[in-house]
């Protein structure tokens, strides 16, 4: 059999426990009906406008992320373990951020080198000494997990800035419920649909002390041409809050206010989907037209909550990632429940030498890269690509980390030839507030649609699946 762990079928071809009902259903189904359903789903997505924009591609400005109808299933027991590990990790991330922007005990203790912090692009000196309400830095986190065996899960990446994809998680489920209600009668699948309600509640719980009555929450989007605009509008709509852009906002009497038809109205909590750099032209990038001049000053004076807090990027930076086991242990006093992927920091000469010698077997990533851009996947790369990367590595080693190529698990997709295995990852969505950590059961499963491909990013031809956590 294959070298990869398939989540649906065992090596002998039998169905694994969580997939029994789905397997039975699939075998009894008529392939042409399923194919029609798959097309129907895509039509719904297109009509609803669940699209994303690809940067640098003018001809197809809005694209659909392909949706596969075979759900990805996680047993209740497996989920429970993941949940505990995720919560531990997210608490550690918030403690780390508080520490980094205050006394930096972890640096003093010598567990993380000072230059990793001070010399890091994602570190915002403007945040030093600022205590966000409830000491919550990452109100929304997406933890990217991969699986390599029955009990082997790894954290591939922590997304602590503005993780996206949650609208796909919700829409995928809605679509599945509409198309295959019978599947949900036969399986006890945990609900995900209260995410928007929880998100709003979680954000409101982080309102600054100056908020009066029910806190006013708003979502800040860069605008309709942003790749995730659909999600911004979707979340604002579902939370019943305003969707604002920079030019709707201005600072009035020490508060950030939105221009309404009745005048300017203060905002208490701003769920921003705009990067730090563009948040405030007075404090960061002066050319930014997406942000609000002076918002950082209001923020530092406690006049608004920004979610996620500015400067959280220091926690999901790929160089910091390699210290995550130490970070978890330092702040929680426990061993990490979720494993990190072994990581070579190329800034270290010995590691660099090893990486250069083994490029054809490793995955090399840019420290600040995301979306699957600017990475090298050794085993599938051409000689030319490897040579080009070797050159880049040598000229700027500290910009890169390297990891072994993981044998990502597979889940079948419904292709023309029937069920075929494809590699997947999982991004669960985590909400943090003074009321606690809330993890939506499941998350977004991304799937590499190309045979053998390990890149699941939607910008690189990945698709998505509905993700089920079963009630055991």
């Amino acid at each position, binding site marked *: 059999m294959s070298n990869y762990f398939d989540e649906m079928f065992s090596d002998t071809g039998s169905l694994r426990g969580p997939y029994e009902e789905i397997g039975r259903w699939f075998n009894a189904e008529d392939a042409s009906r399923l194919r029609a359903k798959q097309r129907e789903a895509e039509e719904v997505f297109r*009509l609803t*406008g669940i699209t994303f924009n690809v940067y640098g591609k003018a001809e197809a400005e809005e694209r659909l992320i392909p949706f596969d109808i075979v759900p990805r299933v996680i047993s209740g027991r497996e989920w429970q373990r993941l949940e505990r590990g995720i919560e531990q990790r997210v608490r550690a991330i918030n403690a780390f951020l508080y520490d980094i922007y205050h006394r930096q005990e972890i640096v003093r203790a010598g567990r993380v080198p000072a230059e990793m912090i001070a010399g890091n692009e994602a570190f915002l000196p403007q945040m030093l000494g600022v205590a966000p309400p409830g000491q919550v830095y990452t109100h929304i986190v997406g933890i990217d997990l991969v699986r390599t065996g029955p009990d082997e899960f790894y954290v591939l990446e922590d997304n602590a800035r503005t993780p996206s994809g949650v609208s796909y998680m919700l829409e995928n489920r809605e679509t599945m419920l509409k198309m295959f209600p019978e599947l949900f009668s036969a399986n006890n699948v945990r609900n995900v649909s209260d995410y928007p309600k929880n998100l709003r509640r979680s954000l409101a719980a982080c309102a600054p002390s100056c908020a009066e009555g029910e806190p006013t929450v708003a979502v800040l989007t860069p605008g309709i041409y942003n790749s995730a605009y659909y999600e911004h509008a979707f979340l604002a709509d579902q939370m019943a809050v*305003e969707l604002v852009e920079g030019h709707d906002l201005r600072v009035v009497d020490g508060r950030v206010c939105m*221009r*309404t038809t009745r005048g300017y109205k203060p905002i208490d909590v701003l769920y921003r989907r705009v990067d730090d750099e563009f948040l405030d032209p007075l404090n960061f990038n002066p050319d930014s037209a997406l942000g609000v001049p002076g918002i950082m000053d209001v923020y530092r004076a406690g006049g608004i909550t920004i979610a996620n807090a500015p400067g959280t990027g220091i926690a999901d930076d790929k160089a910091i990632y390699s210290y995550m086991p130490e970070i978890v242990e330092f702040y929680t006093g426990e061993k990490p429940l979720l494993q990190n992927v072994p990581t070579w920091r190329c800034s270290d000469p010995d590691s660099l030498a090893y990486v250069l010698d083994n490029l054809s077997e490793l995955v090399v990533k840019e420290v600040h890269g995301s979306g699957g851009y600017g990475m090298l996947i050794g085993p599938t790369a051409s000689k030319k690509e490897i040579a080009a990367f070797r050159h880049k590595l040598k000229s700027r080693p500290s910009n890169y980390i390297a990891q072994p190529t993981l044998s990502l698990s597979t889940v079948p997709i419904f292709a023309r030839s029937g069920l075929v295995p494809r590699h997947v990852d999982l991004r669960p969505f985590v909400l943090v507030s003074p009321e606690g950590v809330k993890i939506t059961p499941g998350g977004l499963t991304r799937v590499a649609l190309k045979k053998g491909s390990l890149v699941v990013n939607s910008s690189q031809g990945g698709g998505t699946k509905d993700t089920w956590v079963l009630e055991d």
Partner: protein
Amino acid sequence: MLGKTAGGLFWMSRYLERAENTARLLETGQRMALTRTQNSVEEWGSVLKTAGVLGGYSAKYEEITKENAVDWMLRDGENPSSIKSVIKQARDNARLVRTALTHDVWSAVNSTWMQVDAAMKRRVNERDLPGTLELIRQQAALVRGAILGTMLRNDMFDFMRIGNFIERADNTGRILDVKYYVLLPTAFSVGSSLDNIQWESILRSVGAGGGYRMTHGQKTTPSDIAQFLILDQRMPRSLHFCCRKIQENLSYLKKDYGFAGPSCEASNLLSEKYLGRQISDIFDYGLHEYIEDFLRDLSDLSRQVEVDYRFYE
């Protein structure tokens, strides 16, 4: 509600109305051209003028031909008022205010854009023109139905309606502005077949042939047509009807918000000034001057609404 959202709803609605009106103008133009009794070039020139796109057309083409006129009004990206351009703008505005729209309204607008975009990838030939125009009319009806059937009657609805009726009044006004001479009582126009065709085409371009017959019977006179398009209270495209709707919706906003900007009073003045007269008075004053004054005041009102409700910074 955000000022920007009010603006987005207002303009979404205006653009959709404009698309429908342009489709109707094209239909009328095509029909006139087919009757062959007219100078076709002149007729298409007047259609372009009515749509307010003659200037742009002349900058691109040296002479007026039917093919180019249709293409310019239907799908030319350089023409910001082509049907394709305005549907795109309506859809962009709908995306901007997505949170203010019901699912039905959004899907209707989105599917309109998807279908129009697909139908207008290439030049639309004469054979396919009726089908394409029909598509636009049907989609416009679908969007309108979704709005009327699913939107709350709140300030969001008011802004859509205000935009809708300002655009519609503007359109009816422009048709009268370009064709006023056909309606002037002169010694020569005594109901010749040529006049009849012209009069018919005016009614057709506001989709009012049937309504006119119901109200005035078979007899077509310039005075009755002008009366019908300007002062009739039941005709949904008459200036009277549109002004009353604008007035109504602005007064709902006043009630809802507990305050009103100058636009509310301006809409009352607009009705008072232009509608409280007999059609004979309007002819005495000068139909052309009357329409020009009206269009100017209407456009001032539109700008005042944008200011009063903070559409822009």
